[in-house]
């Protein structure tokens, strides 16, 4: 509702009763210009209230908190005094403000705590149920393996400490370690479960890079011994392109390429078959190779790698 601008705008509208009182007073006055304004009270309250004397201002401040709702509605029509009142109340300390401060302090503190508490465990709460289940299973497997290892190591430690058959145990440990290292280094034959991967290459487009990727994927999948066309693949093995085909550790090999891998057959096959892995790369139209994977419970790798004595590195 548009309001006439008054040159002098006192604090009004905070108590409609005051306005009412002012209006009554005006009604008692002899007729004049202001009477018209008083009659036109619905749209023109401001001039009517403008004549309120200063003693009634005091009354106005007392009645702030108990103004009835009808007057509140009238009060809302008037421009600006709310802002002015807020500003004045803000700089003047009062009990209500102290109460408000206490409550706001508590709320702000609780909000900050809550936000921080949420932020700290965000990582897991954002994950979906299957992910969480997978993670839990992974952790359970890990902890089971670690617990087994602890038990085994403790047994070893106890046997070594009791001293009765210390030498025998120590020898056995050393022998086992040598065997493990021999398999790892490819200086001993190996047998165990695994997979045989045959890559037929009718178009002759299988590259050394593809075979290297295949070997790396098998290693990622937990391969313990690898044989490629009769050549034992070890840590220092290399693949290259020779004059007429692929060369492994200096030995030329020909298609079909046969990878014999010892490890967990299930995991190895999955490692070869995942999307974008060995099988999908080799069978892509650009390469056109045929991959067959056979799982076996018992494979034997007889090929050996001849280690070269290190030229520079010495045990530290």
């Amino acid at each position, binding site marked *: 509702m548009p309001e006439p601008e008054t040159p002098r705008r006192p604090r009004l509208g905070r108590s409609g009763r005051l306005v009412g009182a002012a209006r009554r007073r005006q009604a008692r006055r002899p007729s004049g210009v202001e009477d018209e304004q008083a009659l036109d009270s619905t749209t023109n309250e401001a001039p009517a209230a403008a004549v309120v004397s200063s003693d009634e201002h005091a009354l106005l401040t007392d009645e702030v908190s108990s103004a009835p709702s009808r007057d509140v509605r009238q*009060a809302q029509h008037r421009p600006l005094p709310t802002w002015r009142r807020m500003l004045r109340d*803000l700089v003047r300390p009062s009990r209500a403000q102290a109460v408000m*401060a*206490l*409550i706001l*302090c508590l709320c702000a503190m609780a909000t900050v705590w809550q936000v921080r508490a949420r932020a700290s465990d965000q990582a897991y709460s954002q994950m979906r149920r299957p992910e969480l289940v997978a993670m839990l299973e992974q952790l359970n497997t890990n902890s089971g393996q670690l617990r087994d290892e602890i038990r085994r190591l403790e047994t070893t430690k106890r046997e070594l400490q009791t001293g009765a058959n210390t030498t025998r145990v120590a020898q056995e440990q050393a022998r086992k370690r040598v065997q493990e290292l021999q398999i790892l280094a490819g200086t001993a034959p190996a047998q165990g479960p695994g997979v045989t991967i045959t890559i037929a290459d009718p178009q002759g487009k299988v590259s050394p890079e593809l075979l290297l990727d295949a070997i790396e994927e098998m290693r990622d999948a937990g391969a313990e011994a690898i044989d490629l066309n009769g050549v034992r693949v070890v840590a220092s093995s290399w693949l290259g392109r020779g004059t007429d085909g692929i060369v492994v550790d200096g030995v030329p090999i020909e298609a079909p390429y046969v990878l014999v891998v010892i490890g967990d057959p299930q995991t190895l096959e999955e490692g070869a078959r995942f999307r974008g892995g060995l099988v999908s790369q080799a069978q892509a139209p650009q390469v056109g190779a045929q991959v067959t994977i056979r799982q076996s419970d018992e494979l034997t790798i007889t090929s050996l790698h001849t280690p070269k004595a290190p030229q520079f590195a010495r045990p530290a």
Partner: protein
Amino acid sequence: MIAIFGLLLGIVLGLVLEPTLPAMLQPYLPIMLVAAMDAIFGAARAYLEGTFVDKVFVVSFLSNVLIAALIVFIGDRIGVGAQLSTGVVVVLGIRIFNNAAAIRRALLRA
């Protein structure tokens, strides 16, 4: 002025103290915060309408917060905690919007 200082002090305390929330309270704090927000908006509205009384505010604040927590607590005990907390948040949200509308009208007349 004191109120603003109180707000800032609360934020600073929350950042500095770094408390671990008691596990008992943890599920109910969010709903209590929403109830507190509702009470504060209600207080702002009452102030602008000239009907603010601090004693009423304190009592209504505490009772709202406690009732909100109690509803969710009972809901948890009888197995409808998630639904009840959603319900409480919806109701309080509606109230907050209503209060915000009244505040806006009082301040901007729009």
